[in-house]
């Protein structure tokens, strides 16, 4: 079977982002907690020297010169003179995507923030998947009353203005990754439940399922052998698109200050911080925005690709 090109593109994009966020921080020059005095708001591609001091501080500066037994550390806000004995090691590095107001490496923060964004979206979509599958299957196979109750609940939840609900929950409770996962997961399973219910109902009228039922197949085997395998393609496609939506929702909430707390790096939060000092450093908000877009586009391409491959095999 030919793999659709969109799936290849989306899959590679997602793989690059996931691997980059997981292992990237090991490869990026370690700049510790940054250096607000000497490395504030340096543009992308600046090469810097990193001095690890005996008292545990880390100095980062684009211009380090030696004069006698002292280091002269320059920077936009301050010039320091450091005795040679106070410096444990001197390393060279490059700020590929520049630094923020606090002299922190934007790339390093982007990669760490990506871990959180990816984890929140992946866990959120897992919850949505499990609840959606459960409710959809229960509605389709649990009899008329269960179907009516569950589907009216789905209708009511879908009538909830979704972003308003998210904002409400995050504004009311202490925001944090755990709450975010729960809120995102529990507010996005309704579409999947409808999809699963519809698919199972249409599968039930298919000949092979009728044959299995007539042959006396019991429900555990019915599900594992007939329902779940045939649900795989549409559910996988919807899950990919849903995960893209969750990435955008998480970023939006973090942008509004209601998602990931500001003490942790997050892509949405970085855009918000960057927009406040947009005139001093365009790179602060541009790159996190592009990272969000890259992730959402990869997931959309995977969704498109899965759809066209399931159409081709149908």
């Amino acid at each position, binding site marked *: 079977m030919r793999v659709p090109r969109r799936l290849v593109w989306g899959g590679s994009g997602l793989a690059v982002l996931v691997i980059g966020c997981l292992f990237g921080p090991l490869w990026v020059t370690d700049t510790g907690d940054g250096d607000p005095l000497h490395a504030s708001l340096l543009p992308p591609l600046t090469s810097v020297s990193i001095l690890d001091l005996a008292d545990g501080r880390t100095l980062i500066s684009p211009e380090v010169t030696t004069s006698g037994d002292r280091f002269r550390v320059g920077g936009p806000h301050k010039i320091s003179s450091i005795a040679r004995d106070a410096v444990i090691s001197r390393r060279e590095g490059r700020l590929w995507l520049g630094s923020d107001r606090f002299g922190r490496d934007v790339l390093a923060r982007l990669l760490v923030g990506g871990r959180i964004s990816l984890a929140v979206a992946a866990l959120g979509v897992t919850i949505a998947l499990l609840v959606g599958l459960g409710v959809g299957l229960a509605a389709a196979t649990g009899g008329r009353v269960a179907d009516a109750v569950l589907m009216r609940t789905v209708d*009511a939840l879908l*009538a*909830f*203005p979704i*972003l*308003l609900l998210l904002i409400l929950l995050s504004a*009311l409770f202490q925001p944090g990754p755990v709450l975010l996962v729960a809120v995102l997961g529990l507010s996005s399973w309704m579409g999947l439940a409808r999809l699963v219910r519809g698919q199972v109902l249409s599968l039930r009228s298919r000949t092979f399922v009728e044959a299995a039922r007539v042959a006396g197949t019991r429900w555990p085997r019915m599900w594992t052998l007939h329902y779940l395998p045939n649900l795989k393609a549409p559910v996988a496609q919807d899950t990919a698109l849903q995960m893209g939506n969750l990435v955008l929702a998480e*970023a939006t909430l973090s942008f509004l200050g209601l998602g990931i707390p500001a003490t942790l790096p997050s892509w949405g939060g970085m855009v918000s911080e960057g927009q406040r000092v947009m005139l001093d450093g365009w790179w602060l908000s541009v790159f996190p925005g592009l990272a969000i877009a890259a992730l959402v586009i990869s997931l959309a391409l995977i969704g498109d690709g899965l759809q066209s491959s399931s159409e081709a095999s149908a």
Partner: protein
Amino acid sequence: MKRMVLRRLAALVPLVWLVATLTFVVVQAAPGSYADTIDNPRLSAETREAIRARYGLDRSAGQQYLSWLGAALTGDLGTSFLYKEPVSKVLFRALPPTLVLAGSGLVLTLVLGLALALAAVRHPNAWADRLITVLSLGLYGVPSFWLAGMLIMVFSVSLGWFPPSHMRSVDAADLSGFARAADLVHHLMLPALCLGLVGAAATARYLRATLLDVRASRFMLAARARGIPRHRLLLVHALRPALLPVVTLLGLALPVLVSGSVVVETIFSWPGMGQVAFNAARARDIPLILGATLIGAAAVVLGSLLSDLLYAVVDPRARTER
């Protein structure tokens, strides 16, 4: 048909009641109240208690719910804690700005989306098609708050063409009719463009796929064989069936038209429903939160009904079902 409409309208009331009740439960379950959001360290504990009593927050949750519900049934949505005005007044004031902004966004979405999709399918897989595909995919993935920042950066800060925020200039009250309208349009440009671009990307992606499907169908081959010119083939024969699903989008756009976009309104300081809802949620202004959710939920239900009705109008096949 008529029975379907009546049934759906009858379902509206319990659904909206359910949504309001759920909202009330969520707000009650959260720690703290409006009295705690007042950011003034000099407020004594007694004063905070007095504020709670003044807004009726010292009553039990059940009492608060019943008195709200009783008043709501007579059409009284209560008084906003934050704005110190009737909720209906706050919402009515915020509605026109949202209608203007979301309406212009919707028009841009449809016009741009349609134009891009038509330009793309004229020659499938040619350079224009690829460019539009990449462009619409890119816009689809870009978060709207980021796009808003970029638009402000480029068109407002660097080029100075449009104001970066608010709906009117400070001296708008002194302007005459026409100049006032021009001032409004001037302020409307960037936020409407932000909404329109994001929406147009999704519409173009969707419409391009449907147009390509329609092109491959047999009636198109038959039309081509009859010697119908290319542009007529595309604009009349292919576009009509491809537009059917887009018509349903019109109905589904109703919630956004009424509730507004929280993100865009917040960034551009647009005094609409989205901003009001955002402020209400942050201040735990229970009556206003409930009022905004009520309107939002009603809009979702009416929107999906409207979209089904529109579909039945344009596609006779849908009329016989249900």
